[in-house]
């Protein structure tokens, strides 16, 4: 790597990660002033643990993320299977576009339209609407991740299973599912983090008693930033990083089943 490349790479990384680094560093600040360094301390993590409303919000977030990711994974996988297996059916292109479109839709639009739908249906806003909304958000991503894996799957493996007497259900359960399992796990984790991170859609569709962690953090920041927010954010960043790394490990892992000949 030339010195010039080294410098531009360094600047690029600094641009991306300096704000997060500052956040992490100041979460260990002993002082209660956010911008003044008062020595190293973990006191704000202690405060965090005893902050009841914040912990409750975190639990809501985890619950919503887990359930929304589960729903998104099931529906997204079915969509991916339909797109991969049905050959050229009428409206296939339109269906593909419709599955992928929500990924690039502005979240404000998604949030607003879901809100209108829920109001129209007379659904009370709360945990359920939040889970439905986040499942919608994650579905497209799941379809992309699982679809890529299905495309790389050697179809003769499924044919071999059918040839050996397995009906369609047994073929799926004993051959297809085990071979795409890593991508299902990765897709689940991706949908999980998308739900965990979301503030915009949640603001539209959530109701009383269903405050997520990002919503809670945002409302506290409006009253002024304190080091406790930094500590909570640091934990969130750490958790999301861990999940994303796991997901990329699962999808990137070479597998004999994915290669065709």
């Amino acid at each position: 790597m030339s010195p010039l490349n080294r410098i531009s790479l360094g600047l690029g990384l600094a641009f991306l990660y300096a704000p997060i680094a500052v956040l992490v560093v100041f979460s260990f600040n002993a002082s209660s002033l956010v911008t003044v360094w008062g020595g190293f301390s973990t006191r704000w993590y202690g405060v965090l643990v005893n902050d009841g409303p914040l912990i409750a919000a975190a639990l809501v977030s985890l619950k919503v993320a887990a359930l929304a990711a589960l729903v998104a994974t099931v529906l997204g996988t079915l969509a991916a299977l339909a797109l991969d297996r049905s050959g050229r059916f009428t409206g296939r292109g339109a269906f593909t576009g419709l599955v992928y479109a929500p990924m690039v839709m502005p979240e404000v639009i998604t949030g607003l339209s879901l809100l209108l739908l829920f109001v129209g249906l007379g659904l009370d806003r709360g945990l359920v609407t939040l889970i439905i909304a986040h499942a919608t958000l994650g579905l497209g991503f799941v379809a992309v991740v699982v679809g890529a894996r299905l495309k790389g799957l050697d179809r003769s493996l499924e044919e071999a299973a059918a040839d050996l007497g397995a009906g369609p259900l047994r073929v799926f359960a004993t051959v297809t599912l085990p071979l795409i399992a890593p991508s299902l796990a990765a897709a689940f984790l991706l949908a999980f983090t998308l739900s965990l991170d979301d503030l915009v859609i949640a603001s539209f569709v959530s109701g009383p008693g269903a405050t997520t962690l990002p919503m809670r953090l945002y409302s506290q920041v409006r009253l002024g930033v304190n080091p406790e927010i930094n500590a909570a954010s640091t934990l969130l960043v750490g958790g999301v990083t861990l999940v994303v790394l796991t997901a990329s490990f699962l999808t990137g892992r070479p597998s004999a089943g994915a290669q065709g000949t």
Partner: protein
Amino acid sequence: MAPFLTLERLTKTFGTHDAVADVSLDMPSGEILCLLGPSGCGKSTLLRLIAGFEAPTGGSIHLDGTDLTGLAPHRRPVNMMFQSYALFPHLSVARNIGYGLKGLGRAAASARVDELLRLVRLEGFGNRAPETLSGGQRQRVALARALAREPKMLLLDEPLGALDRGLREQTQGELRAIQRRLGTAFIIVTHDPSEAMALADRIGVMDKGRLVQIGRPETLYERPVNRFVAGLLGDVNLIPGTVRDADGALVRVETALGPVLALGEGAPAAGAPALVALRPERLSTSSADGDRNALDGHVEASTYLGDRIRLQIRMVDGSTIRATLPAGAGLASGAPVRLSFAPDAATVMAA
């Protein structure tokens, strides 16, 4: 004997392209039939039709008195060995082989797997993962798995295609030995003429979706029905001419090299253009006596191959003929030469 497998006017169309066009054939049980042809000739599609992975556009498939035509792959009493082997990467060798044995009890299935591991000489490999095996070992696992359910017929798609040349010849022998021992009918798809010659009881040559000729290897080699079959199975001289008359099984053809008498079962009528197909090794330099045909020319090039000599002869009309002669025929370049061949060494076909 009633045929075991009967294909009747089988057709498969993809869009406007006929992958398999109007193929009919009968096959007795216990036979090795090789489907031979260039890639894209429809031989693999024909195999997939019999296995049930493709639904025919027209025609029918009967095996051992049962109509298979509309049956799903998992309900057909045939098994297939895939070109890529298609071993399940997440299952051990033993569980790959035992995948189709769900109907048996656990003990019976395990005994059957052991028996098959012995058959393909892979005892002790049962717990290995397929990816830890060599290409030849994987090929044998695929064979064992395909034989596990004792299919009425085994379909093999380029079974030796992924192996090295040396291993391929050895495996040909093993495959034939296993087939003879079990007596299962084999249909083997291959693009390699020498492999088809070595393995087959009968060869079916396919071209552009059609079954062009089917018969014993020596029949196809000595009596090809057209220039495609003649050229596919080995080097051949094709001498153009016009049919003059028939003399029993023999046909007289007027060519630029003089009149030629040759076997002509499928020869066109008198006056029609025809080709005389003549294998280089059926020519000799011995004097033309009796009704042997004689062709005159000059040696243009000669290649010494140890056990034989390959000659290129410039004929009187300027065309060239290739001849393969026993070593020691000692012909110098430029020397005049008279080649001769018996009438039953050549075949007349439509041009």
